[in-house]
């Protein structure tokens, strides 16, 4: 079975070529209904859903069958938030208990993923035991898995037996020469295979696994790590190839390569992409492929909404004391999910009405503007500037409002109040918002207000509890009316 290919309609030659640009439509609005139904409450697959629903990962899969240059298997720090990092590895039994404890206490948690800290399919017994038990004991939870793809072809049959209708494959290249610069070795047929030869086998297995999943009707998202100078020029090609095979979503993520992580790239000084470079690549792929922009590159044991991690509340000793009545919890969850769904549906309707009105209204000719938004969910502006751990970046233009990316306010390490070079958290945050011309939050204190103004970013606390897109458009119109957007030379290009 070939899944419907997205964005087949030729894009208009006038204006922006990015498929999600042009109206206030978001990423999910371009999906066929059959797929949208499957992902509408999945925060990692639907940009819309990530404002409402939470996810969790259980770290049952420590072993890996390949080495990537952006990964260091020695690392374990509770202050780190990135893939491959966990604080404790769980047995399948512990994972099932933890999942049910979280589902009971965070009813908006709809998705359980296994993502490591190694490769889930290199730990087939532990991974499938966890899936088997959860599909029986907690049938209202969606199950998903992410893999490097090496062992995928052998696992497709087993995957299709469980409640798993989403699989993520990390595909960084389709060219073994490029692969050899990303993957130093794989373990294959009882041997460690290095260089181009290993990369070639990995790529073949990834592509074969992708085709097999599509044939089974399983939704496939492809993750790619953007590594400047290594695969950045190549990822548009990857996007085309995986789309042609039926992947429904492509998530290009920036390389994380701090030297202190001790990875090959970190130690060798390989830099990650700038926000501009990342957005350029995402935009250039989006003419061909549905792109994901809200990924938070979370830990293999993350718990909660995408921007947060509540893992500490559900450590093994804490869940041991919890008394869980799952059938009762499931009833409550059903009611809550129904209410969220209704809210999302009404909001989607409202948004399309607003988009139609915007199209009908006299068109502005002003330049696009980037704005940062502080939110903890529900699609509204509801976080105090100083409490924001991250900001969502939106672009407002005469065509509407579109989501661009997120930026972390407290970087990757939350264990210290200042960075090594003496920069305060506030300074780091203001710097993280570079390129934005306004920041919308529920409140802003005096000190950050001044610092933001000096940095050319207008603080705005007047739209607390309002819907993000509406508030961003309102501020954009105010800026246009005040004549702040007439200078076309100033920031023609969005840089998130």
């Amino acid at each position, binding site marked *: 079975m070939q899944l419907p290919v997205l964005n087949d309609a030729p894009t208009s030659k006038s204006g922006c070529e990015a498929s999600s640009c042009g109206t206030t439509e978001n990423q999910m609005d371009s999906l066929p209904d059959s797929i949208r139904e499957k992902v509408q409450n999945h925060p990692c697959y639907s940009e819309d859903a990530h404002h409402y629903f939470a996810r969790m990962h259980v770290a049952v899969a*420590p*072993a*890996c*069958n390949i*080495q990537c*240059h952006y990964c*260091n*298997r*020695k690392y*374990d720090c509770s202050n780190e938030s990135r893939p491959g990092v966990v604080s404790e*590895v769980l047995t399948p039994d512990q994972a099932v208990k933890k999942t049910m404890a979280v589902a009971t206490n965070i009813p908006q948690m709809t998705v359980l993923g296994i993502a490591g*800290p*190694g490769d889930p399919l*290199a*730990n087939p017994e532990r991974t499938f035991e966890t899936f088997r038990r959860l599909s029986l004991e907690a049938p209202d939870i969606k199950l998903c898995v992410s893999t490097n793809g090496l062992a995928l072809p052998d696992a497709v049959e087993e995957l299709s037996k469980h409640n798993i209708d989403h699989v993520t494959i990390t595909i960084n290249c389709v060219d073994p020469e490029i692969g050899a610069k990303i993957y*130093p*070795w794989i*373990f294959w047929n*009882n*041997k*460690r295979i290095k260089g181009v030869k290993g990369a070639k086998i990995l790529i073949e297995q990834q592509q074969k696994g992708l085709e097999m999943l599509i044939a089974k009707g399983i939704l496939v998202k492809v993750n790619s790590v953007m590594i400047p100078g290594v695969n950045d020029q190549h990822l548009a090609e990857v996007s085309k190839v995986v789309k042609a095979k039926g992947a429904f979503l492509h998530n290009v993520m920036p390389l994380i390569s701090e*030297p*202190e992580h*001790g*990875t*090959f790239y*970190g*130690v*060798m000084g390989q830099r990650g992409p700038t926000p501009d470079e990342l957005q350029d690549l995402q935009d250039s792929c989006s003419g061909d492929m549905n792109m994901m922009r809200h990924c938070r590159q979370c830990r293999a044991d993350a718990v909660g909404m995408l921007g947060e991690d509540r893992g500490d509340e559900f450590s093994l000793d804490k869940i041991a004391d919890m008394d869980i009545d799952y059938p009762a919890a499931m009833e409550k969850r059903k009611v809550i999910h129904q209410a969220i769904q209704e809210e999302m549906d009404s909001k989607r309707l409202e948004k399309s009405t607003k988009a139609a009105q915007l199209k009908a209204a006299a068109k502005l000719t002003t330049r696009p503007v980037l704005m940062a938004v502080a939110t903890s969910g529900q699609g509204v502006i509801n976080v105090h500037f100083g409490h924001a751990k991250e900001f969502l970046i939106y672009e407002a233009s005469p065509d509407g409002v579109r989501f661009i990316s997120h930026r972390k306010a407290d970087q990757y390490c939350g264990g210290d109040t200042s960075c*090594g070079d003496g920069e305060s958290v506030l300074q780091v945050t203001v710097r993280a918002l570079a390129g934005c011309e306004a920041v919308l939050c529920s409140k802003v204190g005096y000190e950050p207000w001044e610092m933001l103004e000096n940095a050319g970013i207008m603080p705005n606390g007047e739209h607390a509890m309002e819907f993000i897109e509406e508030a961003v458009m309102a501020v954009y119109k105010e800026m246009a009316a005040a004549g702040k957007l007439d200078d076309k030379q100033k920031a023609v290009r969005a840089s998130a």
Partner: protein
Amino acid sequence: MAVKIIESCVNCFACEPVCPSKAIYEAKPHFLVDPKKCTECEGDFPVFQCASICPIEGAILDSLGMEINPPGSLTGIPPEKMAEAMRELQSH
């Protein structure tokens, strides 16, 4: 004749299922090899299975006490480069 897992092991479980002699077992603080069971894969495979999947340089020693995967052999990071990076970080 037996290999040995030492304290730099990160308990990733990768070696345990690939051992043809079931000589590797989970233990605290790290996995261990039962020297009575370990055959160094002789008769089964031409290379040590545990050391062929282990991601940590230096974590597995051969019967002479030599590192089967010496520094730099798995990550590709030259040892002097790693030492330099560590010095740099410690000076902060």
